[in-house]
């Protein structure tokens, strides 16, 4: 029992921010080390979606790379932890893994993969330069566009 479903939601109406709160540090005596977010979503307009923790979206560095099917790909850095890019109106899938989320002696590092079959595929690494344990995970996008009805977000804990 090392990969534990913590919570999931499928939107029945548009919502601009998804918040998983009161994230446990253990389940049935099993200490959790990592978090995994799995998301399948749309937005009304194209806008980069990202995750942040404990209500604090500052002190973040991330690097991403991706391909759109033409050219040699791209890479850039950013101040948020991406879970999407490009056209989200037709649907994006994303996974984000957050490591040692309960540690109080480490910054919080994340690895994300995302894509849209009609647009691009992308991978990124991000770091929240905070030693605070994570107990809240937020999902938003830059233009505050709402995630669409039917979007699903699921959070897992890894022992």
């Amino acid at each position, binding site marked *: *029992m*090392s*990969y*534990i*479903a*913590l*919570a*999931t*939601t499928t*939107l029945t109406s548009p*919502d601009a*921010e*998804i*918040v*998983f*709160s*009161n*994230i*446990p540090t253990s*389940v*049935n005596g099993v200490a959790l*080390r*990592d978090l995994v977010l799995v998301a399948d979503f749309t937005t009304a307009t194209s806008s980069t979606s990202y995750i942040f923790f404990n209500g604090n979206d500052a002190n973040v*560095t*991330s*690097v*991403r*790379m*991706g*391909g759109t099917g033409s050219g*040699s*790909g*791209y*890479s*850039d*850095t950013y101040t948020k932890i991406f879970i999407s890019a490009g056209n989200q109106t037709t649907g994006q899938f994303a996974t984000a*893994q957050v*490591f*040692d989320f309960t*540690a109080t*002696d*480490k*910054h919080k*590092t*994340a*690895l994300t*993969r995302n894509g849209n079959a009609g647009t691009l595929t992308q*991978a*990124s*690494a*991000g*770091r929240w*330069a905070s*030693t605070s344990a994570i107990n809240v995970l937020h999902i938003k996008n830059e233009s505050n566009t709402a995630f669409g009805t039917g979007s699903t977000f699921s*959070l*897992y804990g*890894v*022992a």
Partner: protein
Amino acid sequence: MLIPIGIFASSGAIAAPGSFDLLESTVLTGTQATVSFTNLTSKYAANYQHLQVRLVAKDNRSPDASSRMYLRLNGVSSGYRWHELGGEGSVVYSGVGSATDRIIFQANTGNSGNFGASVIDLLDAFEANKNRTFRIFSGQLVSGFNLVTLVSGSNFSTSSTDSLLFGSDFGSFVAGTRLSLYGIKATA
């Protein structure tokens, strides 16, 4: 939308026991050059199909883009091939690994508290009719040396996976480095 979890979410469910299991984990309490998982065949081959290592690591070099980690299988130092795709923040690169005595992937050399992360998947880890194949997803955020990489590697041997050794190519892992080994079953 606020989704309070508490102990369990109302929609939460426990994964089927024994499908994805934490087998071993180590968190270093001091500097250490290498970390190994051993006797894997006798301990896990009967019950698990695949292995995954989740690694949160930092080595003790000063921030340097060339700092690397490596992986060796069964104490073997030959027969490795690997390819890398990476993003450095302005350039995407790809390459064929020149080293054949190990599989190399990126290491983190950040300041205090700054650890890199890697997920290493070894599919069909114990089967005797396939070469060993690895998939590594890794990232580090170090000022001036941000990296996200995907590595695919293989050891051209059909020997069952019995040991995995992780090392820092230029230094040693520091305290707080964590390596966790997981087993994935073919059926529940």
